């Protein structure tokens, strides 16, 4: 035991001599990180996305392999980074020895800062000896997170640039929504699953983009339910009763048959041909994962909900976002494929 403590002291001394800075993460933990960070292990998909956006050359790997349809939308240099799994405690697909072997300067988790994840961070940091940062991944926190991480990773200008994009988008939409009466906001249904009969309740992380873009989630059962539940199953009768103005989905199976399925025909959104398909490459536009990748989806959805107020060239906006955030020039063919179904 004494030997162990000695070793721990030696280790602390070693990290202290290599010029280090203390940072406080979103969970209030004080973590000592090296002054210059060159290698980052992303603990999950959202962390890999924000690292890729800010400093792709520091990313040690992706949590999972990319599908063929996602690949054209990721910069060629980083498409084939190794698959390093995700760290979620017992449910890890990551092997701790692999994590140590990658020799990262930092393990980054971006998302929930609930107690489970705080204790996981502590435990993993202790086991691996690698500083583990936990950054709040809520959508509103996007500009703050980008600035904070930009600073820690030594890419302040880039962090600032991306944070400004997010901030401008948020404030532009917020300003407009403030002028719209609650009852005039379009009523939106998020259809999940091949039947389209799964949805996220209002207030859940899965559908927060709807409210953020100025819509009303029809599956609104009050804050009490939203605290307990995220996804719920619906019956077609409930959907008919809710009668949404707009339906958004990212499920191709559902989208492909919704206009033919007789059961869905009476729904207002289907009658008005207002069912929209959200692209999901390289990451989802409205969810999957619920992270910064949703910024372009927010832009898109604001145009869907308020076409008179937000008019922009979607192609141009998509190009701009993908160039700025994903550092990728997409070909015309890929662009067409990406937004073919999302048109309105």
């Amino acid at each position, binding site marked *: 035991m004494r030997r162990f403590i000695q070793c721990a002291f030696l280790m602390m001394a070693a990290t202290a001599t290599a010029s280090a800075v203390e940072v406080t993460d979103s969970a209030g933990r004080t973590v000592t990180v090296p002054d210059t960070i060159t290698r980052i292990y992303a603990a*999950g998909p959202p962390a890999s996305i924000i690292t890729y956006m800010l400093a792709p050359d520091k990313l040690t790997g992706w949590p999972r392999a990319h599908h063929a349809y996602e690949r054209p939308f990721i910069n060629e240099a980083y498409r084939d980074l190794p698959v390093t799994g995700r760290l979620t405690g017992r449910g890890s697909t990551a092997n701790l020895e692999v994590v140590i072997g990658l020799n990262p300067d930092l393990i980054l988790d971006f998302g929930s800062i609930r107690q489970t994840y705080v204790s996981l961070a502590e435990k993993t940091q202790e086991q691996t000896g690698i500083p583990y940062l936990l950054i709040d991944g809520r959508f509103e926190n996007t500009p703050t997170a980008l600035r904070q991480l930009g600073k820690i990773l030594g890419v302040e200008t880039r962090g600032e640039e991306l944070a400004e994009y997010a901030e401008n988008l948020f404030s532009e939409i917020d300003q407009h929504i403030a002028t719209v009466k609650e009852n005039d906001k379009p009523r939106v249904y998020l259809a999940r699953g091949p039947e389209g009969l799964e949805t996220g309740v209002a207030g859940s992380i899965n559908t927060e983009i709807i409210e953020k873009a100025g819509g009303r989630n029809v599956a609104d059962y009050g804050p009490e339910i939203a605290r307990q539940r995220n996804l719920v199953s619906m019956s077609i009768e409930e959907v008919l009763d809710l009668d949404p103005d707009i339906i958004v989905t990212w499920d191709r199976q559902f989208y492909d048959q919704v206009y033919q399925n007789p059961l869905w025909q009476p729904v207002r959104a289907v009658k008005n041909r207002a069912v929209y398909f959200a692209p999901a490459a390289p990451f989802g536009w409205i969810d999957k994962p619920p992270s910064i990748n949703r910024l372009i989806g927010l832009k898109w959805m604001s145009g869907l909900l308020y076409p008179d107020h937000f008019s922009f060239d979607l192609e141009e906006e998509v190009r701009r976002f993908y160039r700025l955030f994903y550092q990728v020039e997409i070909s015309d063919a890929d662009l067409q494929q990406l937004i073919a179904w999302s048109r309105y």
Partner: protein
Amino acid sequence: MVEILGKTNQSQTALSGGLLAICLILLSVIASGIGQYPIDYADIIHALLHYFGIEEEPPDQTIRLVLSEVRLPRLLASVLVGAVLAAAGCVFQGMFRNPLVSPDILGVSTGAGLGAAAGILLSLSIISIQLMAFLGGLITVGAVYLVASSIRQHEPTLILVLAGIVIGSLAGACLSLVKILADPYDQLPAITFWLLGSFAAVDKIDLLGALPLCILALIPMVLLRWRINVLSLGDEEARALGVNPDKIRLFLIFAATLMTAAGVAIAGVIGWVGLVVPHIARLLVGPNFNRLLPIAMLIGANFLLVVDTIARTLTQTETPIGILTAFVGAPVFVWLLFHARRSWM
């Protein structure tokens, strides 16, 4: 005749036990040198010598970290959990006089799974989730025992099994409910993986928490080893021989549940070990619990050590161990069904 049989069996047990123990030591040594982070055996010896104060020069910092914080705790945990699952399987199979019984028969795994899932749902810390799993297992089996013992029937073991099925499926339904309520991004995958079992996150603290509980639970098994044999003759015979079957059963159920719950709390739900390993052991040394217990524990330890080494090295990312034990366990079980000539009792 009986005397002779007993003697051959005794020497056979000693031989099998010795071989299995040597095998376990050899496999542990080999497994300690296998892993995603490349470490030479020379480095391991160096690190060990340094640890015991023989070697002055400290080992490489990373190698020390990988060995002491990640690989060795995990290796020891797989040995421990393998041994206790096999032991619990032996106890339950003997007690219920049924070869198809596994440690889950009274719902300990389902209960532990439910406890862990509830902990994940409530966003508790990892230690609390493990505690919830442990308590969930104990409470479920406690409920089964209460229900069964309040029903006065001729066949108490049958009632126990039925109560186990009822309470177990009730706990299963609650588990499904928790899954529906869970956040599909970070909680649901965590629950799913938890139910598949894995040693990926085991650390020293887990090991130090589970070890005393397992040893504690082993004591009544060793002390009652002769009475378990009597119990497997049936309640009437046991009573005739002056053994109170209800009391013995209570002790054994508690002991087997305690060790299984401790194992499940650190490694999640791992199937097949508790079902298949006692069969292999019985094939080697016969049904006498006195011999069966140590042999089964050694086989279980060897088995899970090997399977976990595969789980952590098969690919760059982790393979849940519950999947691998099923892939290995199912064919072995079928083979046993074909080849086991010796009656199971």
